[in-house]
């Protein structure tokens, strides 16, 4: 089948400290308990870069590292796709505050951290990977947009792709006009052929006129409000080990359908 294989996962969010725990919760074998996650360490970054990098970078890099470890491949083998609606809201807020002051003194580090591909840039530096990388945004449809891009890369280039989706809440006053909910990051390692670690086989298609698969009922609404949470119904299907078609909301009436089969 001309699909892609889900060969490892990384997750980080309140009550979802890693894929091992998330898999049990999403699979219905363990109760969800809301606990703020520990600050991600992002060990792969050199100390200097870890200090310079914004908070969202540490979240994105932490789940990327988890997925890579889970698949047992090196960063040098995987192209990357990063998807986020808001990038680093803290950096944006600080930039806009500085630009609203009379002297408009902007920190150069903050400016280079303000690019949407900051997480991808830090990842490539930390991982020492010169593989291609794309960073994209489709507001609440960012997960779907990233999944199409990552799937197309696997199908066309025949190489593994590390797909990272993340969003952290904006600080005030932006938080009042754009509600991200709880912070959440997830990473999916997609490969062109099955590996020892493979969890599922997927076929991805674009469709209209359908409705999205619901979020697992045990998860709090604040978590499901995060654009990255659109990954969770699909991961729940993998966690339950069932064959089913999961429909993911994209934007403007467009959806993705993923035929997901367990892989043993």
């Amino acid at each position, binding site marked *: 089948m001309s699909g892609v294989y889900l060969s490892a996962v990384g997750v980080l969010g309140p009550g979802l400290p890693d894929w091992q725990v998330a898999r049990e919760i999403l699979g219905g074998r363990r109760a969800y308990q809301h606990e703020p996650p520990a600050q991600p360490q992002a060990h792969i970054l050199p100390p200097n870069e870890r200090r*310079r990098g914004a908070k969202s970078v540490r979240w994105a890099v932490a789940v990327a590292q988890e997925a890579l470890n889970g698949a047992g491949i090196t960063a040098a083998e995987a192209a990357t796709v990063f998807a986020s609606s808001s990038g680093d809201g803290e950096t944006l807020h600080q930039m*806009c505050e500085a*630009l*609203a002051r009379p002297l408009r003194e*902007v920190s*150069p580090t903050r400016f280079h951290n303000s690019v*949407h591909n900051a997480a991808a840039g830090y990842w490539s530096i930390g991982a020492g990977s010169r593989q291609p990388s*794309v960073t994209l945004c489709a507001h609440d449809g960012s997960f779907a947009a990233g999944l199409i*891009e990552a799937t197309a890369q696997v199908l066309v280039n025949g190489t593994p792709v590390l797909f990272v989706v993340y969003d952290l809440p904006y600080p005030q006053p932006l938080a009042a006009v*754009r509600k991200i909910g709880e912070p959440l990051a997830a990473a999916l390692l997609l490969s062109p052929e099955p590996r020892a670690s493979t969890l599922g086989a997927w076929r991805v298609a674009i469709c209209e006129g359908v409705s999205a698969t619901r979020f697992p009922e045990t998860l709090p609404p604040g978590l499901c409000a995060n654009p990255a949470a659109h990954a969770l119904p699909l991961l729940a299907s993998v966690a339950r080990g069932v064959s089913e078609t999961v429909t993911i909301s994209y934007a403007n009436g467009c959806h993705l359908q993923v035929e997901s089969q367990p892989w043993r």
Partner: protein
Amino acid sequence: MKPLVITCFATANPLGLGCEATSLALHGRHGGLRHNDLESAAELDTWIGRVEGVESEPVTARLSEFDCRNNRLAQLGLRQDEFEQAVARARRQYGAHRIAVLIGTSTSGIRECERAYCERDARSGALPHWFDERRTLNLYSVADFVQRYLELHGVAVAISTACSSSAKVFASAERLIEAGFVDAAVVGGVDSLCLTTLYGFASLELLSREPCRPCDAHRDGISIGEAAGFALIERAEGAEDGVTLAGYGESSDAYHMSSPHPDGEGAYRAMQDALDRAGIVAADVGYVNMHGTGTPANDRIEDEALHRIFGRSVPCSSTKGWTGHTLGAAGILEAIIAGQCLKQGYVPGSLNIREVDPAFKSRIALEPEARDLRYVLSNSFGFGGNNCCLLFGKVA
């Protein structure tokens, strides 16, 4: 890869409105830069590439909620070169849901957020009611706007890899078409003047006080420009003439967030990957449109990488002396210029150079020359070490 054909290009940029105006300015050696006169940022002593008429054509009617400088610029670009008619034809041919929209931008409508932060409520700190995150600030705003303006459905996405953004859209479009997700794609790039990039590049001491001079011995920084550009991409079967996307190459530097790798390794990989994907060799390339921003480090490493592949045999130049660095729109604007060069058999040379950097080893084209071109390469390199190289050819 199988070449794809580009059936329509459209642009609004500092050289004028439309592809022909852009070509005429290149041929006539009329630059589009002016001393900074942007309202609210005019204290910065630098040169900018500003698009005439952006302010006076608001986004109205059913899309009025999207009104902001960036979407006005997008709209101005979409109205050029009979692009809307070309898309209407493709819509009838493939169906509105089978045409993807992929738009590169680095800052989208951030100017609205900058303005909103100057109007925060004195007591609560709240942003003003008119501010609309989704339809202006969010990077997706411009992709959403373009999709709605062109009455398309299905895949729409903003790609944001800093200054390579609107080169990357070509690579993503090729994959979506090849994987069968869509039959055609509207790709583009839109970035407009804002305080974030002007003061941000000023903080890095990368703004020149003169019109930028890429590849000059005494180059001292960039001039920021704004632009919108679009291309309609389709499968090439049955096409009789036109410009093709023949290849592309992508890489990461894995070196530094805002400085290029000193030996140009990332740039080299992207260019070599583009040649390999097209199945051609360096000697087939007739002109390279450089990223060539005008900063000392960028142009030096690009020269290094160019020399490694082409030696001194292929004319190379940056057209940013005319347009300024249009950041997330640079990839599409220079793709359009590459397309014009292929059609007209023409190498535009360089603008503003007084003396080519004597340390440069590649062949920097200064003067315009007529040249029969089979392939033109266009480089775009962005912050985060994100490199993308596009290769354009002609329908055989």
